[in-house]
């Protein structure tokens, strides 16, 4: 089966070395070392209609060691690059926080706050077009849970996602290192809450639907989004998204589909433009006569913001958002329990997935 590339960590190392060779050449020619970084400022983040996700426009900033305001950061970036080289060579990983603390011992002195060291990592990612996990750096957060007919290989060890306990296979932050070995599933069903995940596992819905059930756990981590992207690309599985029927649920779905503005420089590795939002929709609230809560002022405000967002300009989204505003109510995934615990598994989802 396909892997994420030949060896993304070796590629990352090559990028760093090329960059460093250039710097040595600069210095030998008495030219100030410089690095080009795609600008991550909001003015440079655009929604690419064709790719259907957020991406960076062409604007780049140049950091030069000849600028007194940049020379320290430049030196810190070099230290960070050397730190990553060490991680890659020793086949280790470190969290962003660990790097932040390690920086105290660098000849440049440490960073004033972790934001700053995190930004240097983002600089490296966007400048070399590599992911942080390929540099050996990991976010703190856990990935999501997967249950279904999938076998992966992690560090030489094969893991079946149906044999890792009820909580399923946990996506590691180093998603790039995970090799897909075998997959019998035909689709991915990603749900917002662990509650819904356990319901689907208990009712053996993963088997009935022949699906990989993924718990997003709210706003999904990078590694989870990376998994969905790879499942869609490499395993050719359609991705279905099932969230709460409220503005936050819509937003979770949309971040999976189109990526977030903040990570625009890496969205080509994360966004799943073909992912399909199945519900809970405003129409569902009406048709299934779901128990609801009234929209709060903040919900109304947020929904109106969504209407201005180009990612929601697609007709179905607009229709659902307007309908929700019209109803003035929202509903959770669990609301289907009104018709019994199994209803969502036996009736609602099969109908949405076109399985009955």
């Amino acid at each position, binding site marked *: 089966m396909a892997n994420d590339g030949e060896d993304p960590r070796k590629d990352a190392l090559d990028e760093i070395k090329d960059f460093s060779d250039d*710097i040595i050449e600069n210095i030998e020619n008495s*030219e100030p070392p410089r690095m080009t970084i795609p600008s991550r400022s909001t003015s440079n983040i655009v929604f690419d209609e064709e790719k259907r996700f957020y991406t960076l426009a062409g604007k780049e900033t140049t950091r030069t060691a000849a600028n007194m305001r940049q020379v*320290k950061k430049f030196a810190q970036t070099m230290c960070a690059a050397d730190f990553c080289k060490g991680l890659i060579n020793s086949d280790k990983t470190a969290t962003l926080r660990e790097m932040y603390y390690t920086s105290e011992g660098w000849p440049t002195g440490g960073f004033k706050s972790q934001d700053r060291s995190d930004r240097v990592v983002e600089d490296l990612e966007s400048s070399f077009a590599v992911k942080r996990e390929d540099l050996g750096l990991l976010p703190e957060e856990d990935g999501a849970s997967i249950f279904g007919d999938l076998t992966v290989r992690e560090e030489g060890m094969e893991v079946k996602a149906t044999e890792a306990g009820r909580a399923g296979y946990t996506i590691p932050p180093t998603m790039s290192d995970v090799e897909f070995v075998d997959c019998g599933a035909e689709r991915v069903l990603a749900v917002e809450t662990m509650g819904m995940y356990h319901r689907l596992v208990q009712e053996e819905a993963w088997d009935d639907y022949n699906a990989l059930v993924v718990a997003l756990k709210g706003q999904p981590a990078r590694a989870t989004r990376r998994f969905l992207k790879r499942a869609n690309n490499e395993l050719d599985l359609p991705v279905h998204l099932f969230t709460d029927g409220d503005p936050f649920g819509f937003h979770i779905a949309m971040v999976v589909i189109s990526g977030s503005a903040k990570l625009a420089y890496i969205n080509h590795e994360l966004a799943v433009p073909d992912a399909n939002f199945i519900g809970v929709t405003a129409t569902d609230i009406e048709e299934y006569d779901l128990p609801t809560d009234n929209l709060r002022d903040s919900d109304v405000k947020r929904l109106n913001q969504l209407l201005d967002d180009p990612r929601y300009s697609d007709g179905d989204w607009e229709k659902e958002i307007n309908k929700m505003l019209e109803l003035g109510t929202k509903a959770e995934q669990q609301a289907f329990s009104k018709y019994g615990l199994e209803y969502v598994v036996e009736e609602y989802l099969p109908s949405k997935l076109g399985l009955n």
Partner: protein
Amino acid sequence: MALAKDIFKEFREHSVSEFFRKNAAMLGYTGKIRSLTTVVHEGVTNAIDAAEDAGILPSVYVAIRSMGDESDHYKVIIEDNASGIPEEYIPRVFGRMLAGTKLHRNVQNRGQQGIGISGGVMFSQATSGQSTVVVTSTEDSDNISWNEVMIDVNRNRGEVQEHRELEGDWRGTRVEFEVKDVSYRHSRYGPNNYLRMTAIANPHVQIIFEEPDGSLTFFERATDEIPEQPEPVPPHPTGMRADGLLDLSGETQSRSVGTFLTNDLSRFSRNKLKELEKKVDVDMDQNPENLTWDEAEQIVTAFRNMDFMTPPTKGLRPIGEENIESGLNQILDPDFACATTRSPEVYRGGIPFIVETGLAYGGNAGDDAGSGEKGLEVIRFANRAPLIFNQGGCALTNAAEDVDWKRYEVDPEKTPVTLFINIVSYHVPYTSAGKQSVAEEPEVYEEVRQAVMASARDLKRFLKKKIKKREKRERASLFENYLPIIAQKAADISDKEAPDIQPLVKEIAGVESGE
């Protein structure tokens, strides 16, 4: 050189010693610290005036010695190098209140209206019960005259209790006060700061100061030029009051009221006399001695409705920009000093004054006010005499504090700056008889503000340059620090030898490494 006997010809006497005894506080003898500073002030002012009057560069020695084991008992010694005091004047100089050579003249005056040195004698007598020792020798005496002086309070008369003739070739005056109920502090309000300020405002004066612990401070002179003496200026009609006019009319040489007015007032011409005659019912040909209160009042009331040229300013003697700078440089040893002397202005419609400011930065400038970090220090003067107390309600302080210092690169809390302000006038508008703070006359306030800002602009120019220089230095050190790290890290990453970074450091930082 003026002779002592000529100087003392103008000596006048007023009977207010009784008044003083009851009002010591009003005259600066309030509080243990202030009383001591006041004694020093009176003695030093007397000493400097005496030397200047005689055309001698003043050298003043001041000592404060602890007496026995009582903590509030001191001897204050002030010695000058002036022309000495003729023996017959000693009881009057040291024994009578409001006795002075300048009091009756409309002239810029460093002293405290002549209550002066005799106040010190009185204070000593009242607190310690001891007489004041006066040692003096004039140019035409062969011996040194040693005297013990006391004041007969009831008769407003000084009395020499003991007199001795000493042999020796010395000229000058040495006064020794024995005082109690005072305390010595090496603080902003103590004699040390008083003398430091005096030295700054009088760069032609040398002061040697001995503190109770025996330590000596030398305030060296910064110039050998004795300032020109202020000239008496006839009073200006504006601001004249009936009692003042009557006082003058009693003293005049003129035979008629008309000539008295034109001769003894400034800016009062024959034409003005004609104008005045139409406004008042006063016989201008009568002898001035016969002028009545009612007539005097008619005249001064008429003055208020007449226009006069502003009074002449030739009597005013500012210290001058150059001398202020010298004083600041000599005493504070700053990195930078500048000064501004404004043109004469007039307040209350008729009283001329001049404002001078100076700024010193770095060195011993600035005051830490106990915080450990030196900030803005304001030192105030009236006719070169330090104003130490009542800083709060003073127009000079207020005008200085109202300046937006940030605009001039000065942080009043953190920039080590001494601001010097001197107001020159033969009638300084004090807020009270204590004469330690200047009243908020709008013209005075505005002039001080303008002068402070002018000096602050000069300082800003200097500070800007300094900041630029420091930034350049910081900039260079940034590159010196970080470029080698970039080179080393690049070498580590590429597994190569570190390239020689020094040519690039030189190129970018613009300085040799380690320069």
